[in-house]
């Protein structure tokens, strides 16, 4: 009576273990244009090759498709914005303080008469860069810990998993705040004011976000390392390192990509939270969270000041989360928690 699709499982039997899908994963990331290549007409619907199957499943998630467009527009806007909107972010104009949206200032101005659109374009670059870099840090650490734990047959695995669980139980935000509070000045001295804060925020957010990746990778490794194709490679004399790099890891990438996507959005939220609490970026680096921090005391006279950056954070995070959900449908039919 109940179709498997109804139960939230993807009916396509292509298990993640098959190298075919893993190839698709790599192709999706590395060469998106390849996806545009037409499916050969002769191929029956159920026998699509890797990339096409992934794209087909992703495109069934309509909100994820819309999110790709929204996110692309946000990223393009932030990257190309300064060319189209060349107002300096520190252009103070006391004759235009706390003004609502107008032709001269589409997103209004703040209490110093600075253009909020220009500040959001500049800050958005930092917010997005923090998200992506923190995701990279978390993924690298998670992959390392997860594959070590997944390949070890001795005491290393349980110990690493105990550490992972310990980190999962840490109160993240207080710890983030504590680390920043204690190490702010040292890093500023080493990397300069802007670079120091950036490096620190990325390291701290990434360093507290690797646990889900590590658990996923370990779970994948534990099952993959017993598979026949790994056995076959081992019997041909492949070293463990070679096995991991060429046989196990490529097949474990699907869930990692999904987790990495979600990691970007949680890193963006973490950064804006820190900045919103006044402990992230300094005022001259107007990330979206920082603009909100500055705006929150003027809500009664200038609500637009808070609404635009807040909406930007919301849209970015929402579209990344939807893309992650679409990728999960496409890559990770089994949903490992």
């Amino acid at each position: 009576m109940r179709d498997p699709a109804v139960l939230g499982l993807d009916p396509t039997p292509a298990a993640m273990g098959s190298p075919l899908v893993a190839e698709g994963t790599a192709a999706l990331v590395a060469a998106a244009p390849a996806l545009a290549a037409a499916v050969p007409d002769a191929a029956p619907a159920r026998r699509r090759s890797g990339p096409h199957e992934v794209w087909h499943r992703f495109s069934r998630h309509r909100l994820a498709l819309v999110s790709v467009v929204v996110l692309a527009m946000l990223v393009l806007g932030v990257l190309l914005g300064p060319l189209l909107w060349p107002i300096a972010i520190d252009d103070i104009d006391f004759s235009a303080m706390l003004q609502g949206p107008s032709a001269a200032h589409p997103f209004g101005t703040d209490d110093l008469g600075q253009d909020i659109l220009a500040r959001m374009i500049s800050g958005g670059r930092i917010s997005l860069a923090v998200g992506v870099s923190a995701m990279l840090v978390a993924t690298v650490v998670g992959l390392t810990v997860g594959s070590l734990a997944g390949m070890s047959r001795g005491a290393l695995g349980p110990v690493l998993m105990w550490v992972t669980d310990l980190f999962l139980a840490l109160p993240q935000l207080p710890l983030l705040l504590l680390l920043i509070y204690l190490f702010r000045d040292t890093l500023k001295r080493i990397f300069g004011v802007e670079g120091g804060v950036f490096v620190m925020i990325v390291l701290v957010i990434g360093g507290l976000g690797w646990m889900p990746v590590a658990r996923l990778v370990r779970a994948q490794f534990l099952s993959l390392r017993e598979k026949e194709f790994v056995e076959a490679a081992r019997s041909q004399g492949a070293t463990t390192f070679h096995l991991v790099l060429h046989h196990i890891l490529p097949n474990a990438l699907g869930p990692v990509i999904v987790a990495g996507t979600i990691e970007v959005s949680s890193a963006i939220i973490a950064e804006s939270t820190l900045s919103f609490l006044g402990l992230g970026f300094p005022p001259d680096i107007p990330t979206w969270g920082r603009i909100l921090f500055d705006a929150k005391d003027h809500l009664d006279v200038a609500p637009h000041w808070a609404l635009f950056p807040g909406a930007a954070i919301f849209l970015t995070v929402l579209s990344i989360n939807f893309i992650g959900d679409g990728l999960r449908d496409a890559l990770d039919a089994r949903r490992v928690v």
Partner: protein
Amino acid sequence: MGAYLLRRLLVAVPSLLGISLILFTILALAPGDPFGDMASNPNIPPEVRLALRAKFGLDDPVLFRYWHWLVAMVRGDWGFSFQSRTDVARLILDRVPTTLFVVGSSQVLALLIAVPVGIAAAVRPYSLLDKLANTLAFAGFSLPTFFTGILFILVFSINLHWLPFVYDADIQATGLAWYWEHVRQAIMPVCVLGFFQAASYTRYVRSAVLDVARLDYVTTARAKGLAEGTVTRRHIARNGLIPVVTLVALQMPAVFGGAIVTEQIFRVPGIGALLINAMLANDTPVVMAVTFVFACLVVLFNLIADLLYGWLDPRISFG
């Protein structure tokens, strides 16, 4: 049950020790000398400074210092707040009830929303309700608490003038009016935190219930001719909701993170706001103690969840 309790407790102790070790390492690695200011202060002779260092054990080996710090933390001897000139323990204990009140009510609200919605969505997967709930849940956990808080203030305090947006710890009223004022000022912080958590709980409940809904015993219950509502309530929900306990406990770090933000927005005088203010005022003893308290609370709630889980699910062996 006694043995199970003991075993869970024994598991909790190493995690607390691990967390305390991480905290202490961060503290020990942090640059800056607590007596650094004194070195540049001409009024304090160097002998006094060295004596103070010796008194506080700053020149001892690291393991010694960890042990002393841990003992002091466990005994509630958390130091003296530079800023408010009181004992840190006093300061925190005064504020913990407020935080627990806000966090607790928001969790109740979150579960009151998430459990019915999640079950309804799981019983009819891919129905209109399910899709709507799923989309709303996505929107819910993509809206950061600080932005929801600002939106609430804009709508309910500034535009509609319904609710106060500053939390007042001692309200000048008596009797029913006192309770009413308390509820009124707690509505927004509790809702902001509650809605955010409800979004992720809804998804947990949905997938946990879905896992159970297709088991054979559910089909049996239907085959016996039980009404669909009875099957859902007595057979599916009762079993399906057990894992949610663990998932709620796993969310605790995020919940306390959210509490810090909401307390800061609405100026709720809890330990989250205390942490931020202490950081902005460079009040290190308070910062360390509050972080430690947050860590303990997280471990405590995980322990409670473990025990609840054992009690709810007889399949877990107590032996």
